[in-house]
């Protein structure tokens, strides 16, 4: 097993009584796009925070590129793992370019200024994320979708092999959701990045992600090829909701069925329940 991220017997709880992640073992191969999905409170963001050392596990180990995560210093870890958190609001009005250049902070050296090399990296990130046209606007004047692209650009400018994202599309409309996933997929395919994204959208995950880690509320989990793991039964088990699973061509999709869903009423009527 040669994963770029290897998680071994990982256990974590915010207090000793409530353990939310228990004995997890999995490995992420280099260059794969992995989704982490599951109900609220299952520990998706927690797992992401453990993988970037914002949290320390109660027991078990996490290895990044074969070395234990604790063995890295801050700068070395940042050269391996970049993180895009949810809806960041900076305290002051930095511009897009200034924000992206911050990814280069550890490399500034004694002058306190970025080198031409740092600027080239930042410019590449601007191009890759289609943010160059508002490079000198303040971050706060952008829409959520634009801002999310800027933070992805900043993560790209860290030049790390691994990118972790916490619900990168949660506040975005359909077009911007797809746009962000296209962007991530491009980074995976063209730059060989390993991407791990927490998401609520299992439909986007089936389209874009190679593998999925489904975290259950009870600490159980499933990991594997996205299309193999996701089935109507698995989704019902993990999310505790009925779904309609369909296929159109090669795409698989899931529609949650609530009490008033049309299908459900129809199905119930046919079986004579209403």
């Amino acid at each position, binding site marked *: 097993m040669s994963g770029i991220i290897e998680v071994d017997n990982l256990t974590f709880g915010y207090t000793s009584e409530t353990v939310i992640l228990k004995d997890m073992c999995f490995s992420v191969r280099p260059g794969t796009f992995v989704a982490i999905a599951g109900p609220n409170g299952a520990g998706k963001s927690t797992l992401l925070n453990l993988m*970037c*050392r*914002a949290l320390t596990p109660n027991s078990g180990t996490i290895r990044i590129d074969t070395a234990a995560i604790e063995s890295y*210093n*801050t*700068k070395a*870890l*940042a*050269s391996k*793992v*970049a*993180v895009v*958190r949810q809806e*960041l609001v*900076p*305290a*002051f*009005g*930095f*511009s897009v*370019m*200034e*924000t992206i*250049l*911050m*990814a280069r*902070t*550890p490399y*500034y050296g004694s*002058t*306190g*200024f970025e080198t031409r090399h740092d*600027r080239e990296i930042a410019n590449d990130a601007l191009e890759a994320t289609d943010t160059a046209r508002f490079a*000198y606007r*303040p*971050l*706060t*004047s952008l829409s959520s979708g634009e801002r999310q692209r800027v933070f992805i650009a*900043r993560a790209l400018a*860290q030049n790390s092999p691994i990118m972790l994202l916490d619900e990168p599309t949660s506040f975005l409309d359909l077009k911007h959701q797809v746009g962000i996933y296209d962007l991530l997929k491009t980074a995976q395919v063209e730059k060989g990045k390993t991407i791990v994204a927490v998401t609520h959208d299992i439909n986007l995950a089936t389209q874009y992600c190679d593998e999925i880690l489904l975290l259950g509320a009870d600490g159980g989990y499933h990991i594997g090829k996205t299309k193999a793991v996701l089935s109507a039964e698995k989704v019902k088990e993990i999310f505790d909701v009925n779904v309609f699973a369909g296929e159109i061509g090669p795409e698989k999709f899931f529609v949650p069925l609530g009490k008033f869903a049309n299908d459900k009423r129809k199905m119930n009527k046919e079986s004579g329940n209403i």
Partner: protein
Amino acid sequence: MEQLLTAKRLILRIGLALAVLAAVMFVCSLVGTETVSLKAVLTGPGTQAAPNPDYEIFIRIRLPRIILAGLVGAALACAGVVFQVLLRNPLADPYILGISSGAGLGAIIAVISGFNWTLWGRSPIAVFAFAGALGTVWLVWFIGRLTGKFHVTGLLLAGVVVNAFFSALMMFLTSIAKSDQVYATIFWLMGNMREGDFLVLWIAAGCVGGGIVALFYIGPQLNALSFGADDARSMGVNVARTRTIAFGIAAAITAVAVSLSGLIGFVGLVVPHGVRLVFGPDHRQLLPMSGIAGAIFLVIADTLARIIVAPAQLPVGVVTAIVGGPFFLIILVKYSRKVSWLK
């Protein structure tokens, strides 16, 4: 590329700002109750029997006072910048974590005890105020750490409570003090520039100048910290080290400023905001420019304090608030149309 901060552009701007500061200091040194002739000053100190009054006033009274005002203004403005970014709170100023009440308590203890010794030419008030200021910051920092790993809310609450507690102690001591002691304390609390001797000024200048240069070098890290500790860390910034350095330096230069001039409000809150509105939030530029702007601001305010009700003098803290308030509002209205993050 047009709008990015480069080393060349920064040096140019700092140079220009320093030139403005020098010009302001020069003009202010000529203004006052006594008209001083520059020509007469240049003739030298005169003899023991017939001292040159122009020289005496200019070199021994005006110059040290103007240098002191510049130093205190620079220290308070830079400390304000640092506290605003560390606490990620635009309302933060150098006194937010209780430095003011700690220094005030130290000062009033010195006054009430009736100490009359001097240390390096400073009265015990200054020494006690310095110790009180640093002691309070350490206490707040320590309590803040007990509430968790640098929890901003914990730190702020600890600051507020320690501030309230020490203020109450101060009021208690004031109410049992004799009336002349009370007057001395109140005058100190309002903040004012007294003429120090040059040795003290050079030591203070070394502390403040060195502190600002050191802060400049952690400017990029402070920029990253504007996005919060987790984010800065995942960009590879050593957050604990940056915070400790920034916090230590800001507390130290504030304590120096407070012990030299008492409590001068407003500079540390308003100058950083004004400079940020005009020049943007990059700390590599914000710190030196705030330092210079703070110095200019306080030199002018102190000159006004000397001349408005001459031959009497106003406490400079009164002037900073009266002049600084409207001035800041003008900047706020003028520039916030361009700066969307204020809305």
